[in-house]
């Protein structure tokens, strides 16, 4: 019952946000084209590169395509669900957040899920299609590897959620959202290629300290059978730990919310 209640609210908010998005079809089409260009251009670049070199950091053509498609799925899915984070600063500086706190919803619900971006759906479908198509061309994949892949995808989404909750919390404490969320985007962009591309100590930093590697490349490595049981365990611990930490930080931020606005 409760689950349906949240789902219904999410759907209503998404429908309302979509109406705003499609109010200007011109803008919606251009934004969509921009997203498609970004997706396609980097893919063409990787294809041009690997056609010449045969491998990148030891990975074959279809493995690189699989990495890139998985990255896009894990990059776009949080953007689709957590789009309202990008609007959160306005809610804080205008005082609208006070209004949100009075609604019969958890305080985190609207800032996080208050309106998904329907323009991302095309990229989501393209990513899923590319994942399936490239997976078919990979060497033997077992059911176990596939299950661990899905588990680590969910774990990657959990890490993304944690990052977005951190951004919202920082937004409450400092009213700065844009830079932190874009910093998150740029950090995760480093996962467009397998983490082995980077040299130490950068590789270690973006694997464990800022877990871009765990989030973006561990699922693909698990699918290729290149991740140890220890690696899977660490990934899940980091994912769960970050998520719980982000919730604590959110509570701390809420307790320090001063309701100061213009």
């Amino acid at each position, binding site marked *: 019952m409760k689950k349906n209640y949240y789902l219904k609210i999410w759907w209503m908010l998404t429908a309302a946000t979509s109406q705003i998005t499609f109010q200007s079809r011109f*803008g919606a089409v*251009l934004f969509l084209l921009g997203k498609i260009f970004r997706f396609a251009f980097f893919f063409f670049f990787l294809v*041009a*590169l690997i056609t010449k070199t045969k491998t990148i*950091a030891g990975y074959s053509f279809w493995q690189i395509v699989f990495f890139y498609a998985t990255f896009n799925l894990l990059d776009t899915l949080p953007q689709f669900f957590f789009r309202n984070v990008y609007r959160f600063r306005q809610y804080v500086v205008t005082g609208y957040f006070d209004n949100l706190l009075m609604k019969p919803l958890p305080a985190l619900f609207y800032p996080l899920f208050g309106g998904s971006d329907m323009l991302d759906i095309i990229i989501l479908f393209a990513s899923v299609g590319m994942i399936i198509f490239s997976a078919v061309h990979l060497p033997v994949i077992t059911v176990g590897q596939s299950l661990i892949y899905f588990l680590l995808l969910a774990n990657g989404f959990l890490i993304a959620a944690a990052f977005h909750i951190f951004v919202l919390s920082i937004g409450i404490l400092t009213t700065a959202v844009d*830079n932190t969320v874009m*910093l998150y985007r740029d*950090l995760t*962009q480093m996962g467009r290629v397998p983490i*082995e591309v980077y040299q130490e100590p950068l590789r270690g930093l973006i694997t464990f300290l800022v877990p871009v590697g765990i989030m973006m490349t561990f699922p693909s490595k698990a699918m290729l059978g290149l991740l140890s049981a220890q690696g899977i365990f660490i990934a899940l611990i980091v994912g769960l730990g970050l998520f719980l930490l982000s919730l604590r930080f959110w509570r701390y931020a809420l307790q320090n919310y001063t309701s100061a606005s213009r």
Partner: protein
Amino acid sequence: MMNKYFFVIRNTWEEVATYRFNFAMWRFRNVLQLLTVYYLWLVVTPVNGSIFGYSQSLILTYVLGTAFLSSIVLATRTQEIGENINTGELSKFLIRPFNYFGYWFARDVGDKASNIAFAIFELSFLYFILKPSVFIQTDLATWFFFGLAVGFAVVLNFLIGCLLGMVGFWSSDFWAPRFIFFNLVAFLSGGMFPLDIFPKAVVGFLQSLPFAYFLYFPIEIYLGKLSAEQIFAGFLTALLWVVALLFITKIVWVKGLKLYSAQGN
């Protein structure tokens, strides 16, 4: 006469200094983007061989060079023009005793100066940490043509930026065209890879677009990869684009002003 534009440049510089945390974050993000491209090229280029006709030294110079050039060419404030029109702020500018585009060009210069200062610091730091082997051009004539190409790139980006801002005369959706422009520039300007990694027909098409003259053309001149004929053809195409864009900008400005209703807050 020039003094007022100098003050605009100085004010823009001071504006950046006021919001220095935001600016530092923006620059840090640029470094992250650079690192992905840098390491990707490093890993695919053989130490003593070459890829797409680029040795490791040339390709790393290309990557670091375009990163530096981006701070000169792509740094702009013209994105504020659309907002300026939509909020009615433009009215104030129309009665002020200076050229509207001169004002924005001066804003651009101030913004570029701040970006260049940071880029020098970042790239020096990265050079110290990564210790890449880079190619140093010693021919003075090549330096001259490189400088000229950068000048063309700055003007081209400014004119396109103004045109995108003037979308605000017709629509409040002035961010959407700019979003698509950012994505086109990110790839088609050669910021991520040299355009000549693609087949010849594709390269020919890309070189007929203005984006190729933002980063790819200047840096290829610097690397000494272009013949005299190619340099001449490149400058001619860039010049044609500048003239065409100047003409279009003027028409759009006149038509836009006729529509402008000073609506806003």
